[in-house]
């Protein structure tokens, strides 16, 4: 028996010429008609996209589907058009936010912008002076302290919710969910009332405390889902080998849930790193660079953006955009770092020396 390799074929994708023409027409016509209408009548193009293009595209695709497969073809075509349309809609919105931050922000970005602080800088100062170094330090310290507080506690809550049989779990879960709806400004006001009542000075640590109740529910919820996904088989297997509960948890369940727990950390981080209101209330702003979260005000990136946005000068706006871009880059960097560390650790068990086989 001889075997000659042949290229793979996909016979289910075969379509006759008529249907091909219909598909091409259905893909082009609605767009052409909409474009023509916009040019001829001058109506708003985004309005036309939703009022004219979407219905036309639905009708066209529905007709092609119905022509090919009857009613089920109509349903399939409708689903395809609607999902693609709304995915594209969301994608374009997100990309335009990204693009404007990157194009506007990159004008301000330079090494000096990352390292210098905001002392002696005013709304009209040229972009060659000053930067967000003080805000980067403040954001990292404040969010770092929040993370150190909230992540272990959030994971501990998730462990309680998934591993114990306690009857109080329902209460804890409900309270956590309620907490996740807490407006950040309320959290800030609460901490501010403590500061005022006891006569403290506004400082970084109070910012961390104000961010804590915002981060905790996110971490706890996501970590709970991650731990739920670990098959109960694994825990039983560990216990059947004579493992005490804590070792079964630390050596088997936790490693199996690790990538999910890293996601919990990242979503928690994303929840708080851009918060502005609670920080303005509890940390205040500081043009100088402060490394001490326990004494005096600190600058943070969101507060920096807020401060320069309220000005009417062009260079001030560019500083705000620049700080926004730095925040985006910082988040991307932290996400990448967490994923890298999460992966590197799981590889650790692999590269042990391989003994020559007998």
């Amino acid at each position, binding site marked *: 028996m001889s075997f000659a390799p042949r290229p793979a074929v996909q016979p289910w994708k075969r379509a006759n010429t008529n249907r091909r023409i219909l598909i091409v027409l259905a893909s082009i016509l609605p767009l052409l008609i909409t474009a023509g209408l916009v040019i001829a009548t001058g109506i708003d193009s985004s309005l036309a996209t939703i009022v004219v293009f979407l219905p036309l595209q639905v009708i066209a695709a529905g007709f092609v589907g119905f022509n090919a497969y009857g009613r089920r073809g109509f349903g399939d075509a409708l689903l395809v058009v609607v999902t693609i349309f709304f995915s594209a809609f969301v994608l374009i919105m997100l990309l335009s936010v990204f693009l404007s931050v990157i194009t506007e922000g990159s004008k301000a970005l330079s090494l000096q912008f990352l390292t210098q602080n905001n002392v002696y800088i005013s709304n009209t100062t040229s972009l060659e002076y000053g930067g967000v170094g003080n805000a980067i330090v403040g954001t990292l310290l404040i969010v770092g302290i929040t993370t150190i507080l909230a992540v272990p506690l959030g994971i501990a809550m998730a462990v309680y919710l998934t591993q114990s*049989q306690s009857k109080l779990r329902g209460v804890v879960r409900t309270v956590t969910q309620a907490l996740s709806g807490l407006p950040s400004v309320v959290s800030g006001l609460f901490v501010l009332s403590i500061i005022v009542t006891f006569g403290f000075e506004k400082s970084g640590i109070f910012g961390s405390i104000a961010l804590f109740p915002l981060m905790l529910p996110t971490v706890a919820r996501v970590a709970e889902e991650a731990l739920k996904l670990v*098959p109960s*088989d*694994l825990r*039983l*297997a*560990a*216990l*059947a*080998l*004579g*493992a*005490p509960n804590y*070792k*079964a948890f630390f*050596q*088997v369940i936790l*490693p*199996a849930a*690790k990538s999910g727990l890293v996601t919990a950390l990242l979503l928690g981080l994303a929840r708080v790193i851009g918060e502005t209101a609670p920080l303005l209330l509890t940390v205040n702003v500081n043009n100088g660079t402060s490394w001490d979260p326990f004494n005096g005000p600190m600058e943070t990136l969101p507060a920096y953006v807020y401060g320069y946005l309220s000005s009417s000068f062009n260079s001030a706006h560019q500083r705000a955009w620049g700080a926004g871009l730095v925040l985006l880059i910082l988040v991307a960097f932290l996400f990448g770092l967490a994923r890298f560390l999460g992966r590197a650790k*799981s590889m650790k*068990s*692999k*590269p*042990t020396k*391989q*003994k020559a*086989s*007998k």
Partner: protein
Amino acid sequence: MTSLTKASTLSSEDISVWFGQRQVLSNVNLTFPANKVTALIGPSGCGKSTFLRTLNRMHELIPSAGLSGSVFLDGEDIYGEDYDAVTVRIKIGMVFQKPNPFPTMSIKDNILSGLRLSGRKIGNAEELVETSLRRASIWNEVKDRLNDQAISLSGGQQQRLCIARSLAMDPEVLLMDEPCSALDPGSTRRIEETIKELSSSMTIVIVTHNMQQAQRVSDQTAFFLADDNTPGGVVEFGATEQIFNGPIDQRTNDYVNGHFG
């Protein structure tokens, strides 16, 4: 390749089991002599897997579980004050229906996981890994990739890895809960050969739905049955030869000949 401990005799005395208010097993009295293979057979839902779990105290992990009676390991009650669940599970190993190697560990670490998890010292790791894998007859297939992740193995290999993982603990008794139900005939045959070899160094109890398997591997057989809305129990218990070729009870005869269940 010698076993550190001797095989032990395991026996149950008047074991009854509840889930909440519902009794699912009633007065099970069975003896599993050292170095013998005992098969537990019976239709689904008759309580044989539940009974198996009472033998190494895995049953008590279910929150609504209840139990009366005793299980004796070499004359000592494993539910008595001198024993705790962890000690019992170290001496009495278990292989589950579905292969469940630890997915985050390498093949080698899976073998060593039992000792690590139960907090015991690992003497010669390399030797223990090889010995355990050889006893589960999977050494030749994995010896060149001991550091690969365990989930890279096929289903049958994973199950034999799980057996090897139990063997690394050097158990006195090995409990197997339908270990071949998810495997192909080739893997099943290899595991059956492994069971026969292992019985020289330990006591084995195996739950199976496969009549031929029970006949091939076991020395004695217990037939479990639960009538409608009554707790399950042992209908007949004796030498495998007798259960399959000359059962005393009519229901045993019907079951082993495939008339119901």
